[in-house]
């Protein structure tokens, strides 16, 4: 009987009395290592990479990717995906800008409205996906076009000029920092911490993993799968709203239709580099945060090394392959071991 029971478990290193699932995945620890090495190397080979005036803007620029990536992590953990975030970001940003400029709403109110609008867009996605029971990639391809249409109509073929400079506190400027860290990145940290806590400690959060693991089984154990599945999309929407705010602040006093273009793939890249499994059931917000930093480090690093900036995308692609490949390899090894 005993040999039967011990047969299951690889013997080494499992003796600790953990009550909680693991806090840091291997992938996250490796990512932290990779980031440290990259930063040291970049610091050595560029004049300024490891200085405040380079790291601060880097954090500010990584913020929108991270803000979207955080919600996207929850979505992907439930085995979903949201391609519409870039279009959604444009809608939120233009609404915020127009409320402030054309309707003279006070800034906080306008930003809040834009963030809520993001949540609403997310709700729209979530409802279509759960009620239609169609693969989310297809639905969000579609809603992406619809949001884009809305955004363009609201822009009304113009740019929005004269966005108040006060928005700039959320950007990469000097007036928007606390202990040297840009406010926008502080928002990222707070949000990531919240969602990390939620997904790790609360029942609702753990249910995301269960749904991503096996939606049918989740239904059988009494999880309200449909309701639960909507939540990550709404979270993503809210994150997109925040990202719109930061993207606007990172930009100029003029907002153009191109805001946020291509950020959906950057956010997904950050999520998968962070070790979240695209087929669902596994992943964490912390990894995404690191992934976003890696994506932006690669982009800025390429430029600061004096290489062709267009190569940055190539390295992002390679980073995805290495990160996911390492994860696949590790999984294969543990499977062999057991």
């Amino acid at each position, binding site marked *: 009987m005993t040999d039967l029971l011990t047969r299951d478990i690889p013997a080494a290193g499992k003796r600790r009395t953990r009550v909680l699932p693991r806090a840091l995945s291997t992938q996250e620890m490796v990512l932290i290592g990779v980031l440290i090495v990259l930063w040291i190397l970049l610091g050595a080979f560029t004049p300024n990479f490891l200085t405040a005036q380079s790291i601060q*803007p880097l954090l500010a620029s990584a913020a929108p990717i991270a803000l979207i990536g955080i919600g996207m992590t929850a979505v992907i953990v439930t085995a979903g995906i949201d391609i519409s975030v870039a279009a959604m970001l444009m809608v939120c940003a233009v609404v915020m800008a127009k409320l402030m400029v054309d309707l003279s709403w006070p800034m906080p109110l306008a930003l809040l409205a834009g963030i809520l609008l993001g949540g609403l867009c997310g709700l729209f996605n979530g409802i279509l996906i759960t009620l239609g029971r169609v693969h989310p990639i297809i639905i969000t391809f579609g809603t992406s076009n619809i949001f884009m249409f809305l955004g363009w109509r609201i822009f009304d*073929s113009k740019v929005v*000029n004269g966005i108040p400079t006060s928005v700039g506190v959320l950007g990469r400027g000097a007036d928007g920092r606390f202990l040297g860290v840009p406010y926008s990145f502080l928002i990222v940290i707070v949000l990531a911490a919240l969602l990390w806590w939620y997904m790790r400690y609360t029942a609702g959060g753990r249910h995301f993993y269960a749904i991503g693991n096996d939606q049918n089984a989740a239904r059988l154990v009494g999880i309200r799968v449909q309701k639960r599945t909507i939540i990550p999309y709404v979270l993503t929407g809210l994150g997109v709203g925040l990202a719109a705010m930061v993207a606007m602040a990172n930009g100029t006093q003029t907002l*153009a239709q191109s805001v946020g273009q291509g950020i959906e793939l950057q956010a997904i890249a950050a999520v998968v580099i962070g070790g979240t499994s695209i087929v669902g059931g596994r992943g964490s917000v912390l990894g995404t945060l690191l992934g976003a930093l890696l994506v932006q480090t690669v982009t800025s690093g390429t*430029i600061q090394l004096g290489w062709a900036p267009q190569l940055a995308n190539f390295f992002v692609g390679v980073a995805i392959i290495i990160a996911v490949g390492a994860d696949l390899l590790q999984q294969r090894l543990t499977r062999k071991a057991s």
Partner: protein
Amino acid sequence: GGDGGDGGGGGDDAVTVAFVPKLQGSPYFEAMNTGAEQAVEDIDGLEWIYQGPTDASATAQADVVRSMIQQQVDVLIVAPNDPDSLAPLMQEAADNGIKVATSDTDAPDSVRELFVSQATAEGIGTTTMDTLAEAMGEEGEYAIVSCGETAENLNSWIEVEQAHQEEAYPDMELVEVGYSGEDSAANAQMATDFMNAYPDLKGLIGQCTTSAVGVAQAVRDAGRVGEVFSVGVGTPASMVPYLEEGSSSGSILWDVEQFGYLTAWAGLQLGQGNELAETNAVNDAITAAEYSADDSTLLLGPPTVFDAENAGEYDY
């Protein structure tokens, strides 16, 4: 958006002039449209169609151009994203009896009968470089933040700028040209990275309307107003705050609305088969648009340098 005519150049003698910008929603082209609509109000027998693609690509633009050919407009004016790509389509339009012209960006190897030029590439490039050189004290490193990698006119301006600098300002040095698309946040981040990569960087050029603002924003955010000088090809309304605080030392542009007016007017002339004179008085503001028969180019005039004083007078 622009107002279409009833299309087809029906039974009346009105001339339908269609203009296809590089993309819609850009303040620059929308301002051209505003100017053209003024022309429609002023001039009898001119009908104006304005329709642009949703992204600044040759592909998307070709669809719109093709639609214009189907609509059998009288005159088709295009600001080509990629002149080479458009040349055959213009041929097709001409084969269908449509008069074709370019505006803003030329397609020299095409069958276009006229190019309405805002200013020569020479003029824009030289003025931009002169403005930057003056701000930088004619010495030091500078970098260029451009937008689309393949934008023909931006690339031609960059060429002129570089050549002019080598000739006239030997103490200046171009360290990098980067392309970061039409997103001002990305433009600004690239400018920031340039400032970090080249700590002695003294000058930045924002080569298109979004990056003109983007580079200025980057200088402002880095807190280096007065140390790093930026100039750009930006629309006045978006540049005002930056010009005022000094993060931008000047914006090189022309009166875009008048340029739109001129384009519409030129289209009408083309449609009616009128010969252009060597200098043309078009309206109160455009009194001497020069026409060169050699390269069939109608020129608005020299570029304007907007600064803190005059930029506020424009609402685009």
